[in-house]
């Protein structure tokens, strides 16, 4: 049975194919369309999934959309009524989008895919989140917590997964939302919403959590982790472009930061604010999971929703929370809902048995030697190839050891926002200057943003505070920020963040043998089996997908070498290739887009 899951018309459109209970292909549309956070119909991602699955659209049994559009429409209408007359502009803007696109999703999908309407199913947004995590987890039964900005009405759920069924117990509803609270502070600190949340998280170690008490005055947090926002301080429920009311700024006594300072300034006040909202987020999540543990009595936890991308909080939940094991899907945001919707239909609705746990995130597209070679030759790009794998891996490890920054493209693209060694920029983490070099000459992004380490699983515990690393599934997908062991911080200065932490990825020989071997070889040369890994893109660009994207990004940045499979391209070969354009995105979503 083939089930195609789709998510689109919000942000991060994606398609995923579940074939007889196995997730065989999944990709965000942005990888192909080259539009960051592309929200359009995921035509190219669908085409890829079908091709990868070896089927046509006519072989698909069901197409499942990740949410219930009419329920969200009801929320938009009732919110406009509840906030009348302040909501005139947001009503106009959102209705224009709904009338032109979102109300006609079923007929549009049917027309574009040429599939009968009876094959279309609609999952609830948060059930899609829950399913993405539970059905790909290794757990037979688990408690499930989903937390994001907003779905239809729901902003968080508590659920239980058993076998092939998910039972949702409770929900929290719009506008009371931990995700939207975090986004409000993202805007206050001068970053773009639905884009700058990573930056806020990256900034928090530079500050002290001095303002937690002041933040708690904006909301009620019950012992069960539920939130009630005092909406006098917020405007996202009735404004097109403002998350914060004037009362919010008056409460803190400082205006929101001008976004133009975000790239250069580490203003202590906003760093303290970032640290404070991070602390509050962690405390609320901890209360939520403690309550979830109390009401379910279960030992395993699956997390999903955009808030599960807060890898600092994830580690604390694992260390300080009541659950023995935590699992997070590699794409916990709305892109992952496409996989969740497909799994929910296959397992829960159609009562099919569960497939295997998801051991890796390499579910995207792949380019073979022929494709790479013909690209290089067609564009007269000088290259060489080391056909022997071991010799090639030795060359790469020695290149890293000598201080070069390299683009690395090999195997299937990663599913989710993290680069996990298929489309990565890699460097030597022992050299402090690498952080500055990568931020200023290669990624062109804020100097305070940290870089992640990839470590072979066998030796992860030696460098990071992560005992029994094989139990920590989120670390496979780079969803934990763990302390670097104190004695290793001087050894790994380029990946050790201000507070002594690192967002590590544990690399397994079974799931990515080439990447594992590079790190292992680097370890044999240096006694440090860790390399610096950041996504293969420029700031605001989607992660590269094809050889053309990789070469273009390589040419536009200060990288020294490009490795595509066993092909080696040196910096002297850089040139402009006109047809590989992309849209750099430096702005986030509008408030209307965020909530509708």
């Amino acid at each position, binding site marked *: 049975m083939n089930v195609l899951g789709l998510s689109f018309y919000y942000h991060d459109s994606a398609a995923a194919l579940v074939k007889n209970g196995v997730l065989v292909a999944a990709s965000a549309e942005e990888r192909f369309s080259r539009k960051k956070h592309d929200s359009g119909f995921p035509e190219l991602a669908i085409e890829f999934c079908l091709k990868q699955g070896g089927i046509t659209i006519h072989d698909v049994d069901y197409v499942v959309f990740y949410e*219930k559009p009419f329920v969200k429409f009801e929320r938009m209408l009732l919110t406009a009524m*509840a906030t009348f007359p302040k909501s005139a502009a947001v009503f106009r803007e959102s209705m224009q989008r709904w009338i032109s696109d979102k109300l006609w999703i079923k007929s549009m999908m049917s027309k574009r895919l040429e599939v009968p309407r009876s094959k*279309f*199913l609609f999952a609830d947004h948060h059930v899609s989140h829950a399913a993405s995590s539970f059905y790909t987890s290794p757990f037979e039964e688990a408690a499930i917590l989903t937390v994001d900005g907003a779905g239809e009405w729901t902003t968080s*759920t508590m659920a239980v997964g058993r076998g092939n069924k998910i039972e949702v117990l409770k929900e929290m*509803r719009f506008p009371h939302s931990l995700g939207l609270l975090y986004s409000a502070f993202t805007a206050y600190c001068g970053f773009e919403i639905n884009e700058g949340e990573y930056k806020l998280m990256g900034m928090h170690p530079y500050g002290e959590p001095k303002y937690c008490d002041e933040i708690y005055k904006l909301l009620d947090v019950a012992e069960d982790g539920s939130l009630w926002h005092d*909406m006098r301080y917020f405007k996202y429920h009735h404004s097109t472009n403002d998350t914060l009311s004037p009362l919010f700024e008056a409460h803190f006594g400082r205006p929101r930061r001008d976004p133009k300072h975000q790239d250069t300034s580490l203003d202590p006040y906003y760093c303290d604010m970032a640290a404070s909202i991070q602390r509050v987020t962690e405390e609320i999540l901890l209360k939520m999971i403690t309550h979830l543990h109390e009401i379910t009595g279960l030992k395993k936890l699956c997390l999903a929703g955009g808030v599960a991308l807060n890898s600092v909080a994830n580690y604390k939940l694992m260390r300080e929370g009541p659950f023995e094991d935590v699992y997070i899907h590699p794409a916990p945001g709305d892109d992952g809902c496409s996989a969740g919707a497909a799994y929910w239909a296959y397992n829960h*609705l159609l009562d099919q048995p569960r497939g295997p746990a998801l051991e890796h995130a390499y579910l995207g597209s792949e380019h073979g030697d022929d494709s790479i070679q013909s690209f290089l030759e067609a564009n007269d790009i000088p290259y060489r190839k080391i056909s022997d794998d071991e010799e090639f891996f030795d060359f790469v490890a020695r290149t890293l050891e000598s201080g070069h920054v390299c683009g690395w493209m090999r195997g299937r693209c990663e599913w989710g926002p993290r680069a996990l060694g298929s489309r990565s920029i890699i460097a030597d983490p022992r050299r402090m200057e690498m952080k500055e070099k990568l931020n200023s000459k290669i990624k062109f992004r804020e100097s305070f943003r940290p870089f992640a380490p990839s470590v072979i699983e066998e030796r992860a515990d030696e460098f990071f505070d992560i005992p029994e690393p094989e139990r920590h599934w989120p670390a496979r997908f780079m969803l934990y920020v763990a302390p670097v062991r104190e004695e290793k911080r001087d050894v790994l200065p380029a990946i050790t963040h201000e507070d002594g932490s690192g967002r590590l990825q544990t690399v397994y020989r079974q799931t990515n043998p080439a990447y594992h071997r590079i790190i292992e070889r680097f370890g044999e040369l240096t006694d440090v089996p860790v390399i610096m890994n950041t996504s293969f893109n420029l700031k605001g660009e989607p992660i590269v997908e094809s050889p053309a994207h990789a070469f273009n990004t390589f040419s536009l940045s200060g990288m020294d070498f490009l490795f595509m499979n066993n092909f080696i391209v040196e910096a002297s070969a850089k040139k402009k290739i006109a047809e590989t354009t992309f849209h750099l995105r430096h702005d986030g979503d509008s408030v209307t887009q965020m909530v509708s």
Partner: protein
Amino acid sequence: MQALAQFTERFGSMVSRLLLTALYYGVLGPVALVYQRVCDPLHLKRRQAGNWTKWESTNEDVAAARHQD
């Protein structure tokens, strides 16, 4: 031709904004004023005993899942 298409798009957008504004104040407004007095769908009033609500599942079979609501 491109200029005409751009003009048509902008004109259409302007007309739809005018109509939606009229709809907002003329139709939605009077209903909203009554609605605000009797309902609190956003839970804007402070709640005493936590803010979790019981999940009402209405999407448990294929027939229900075919619906967009």
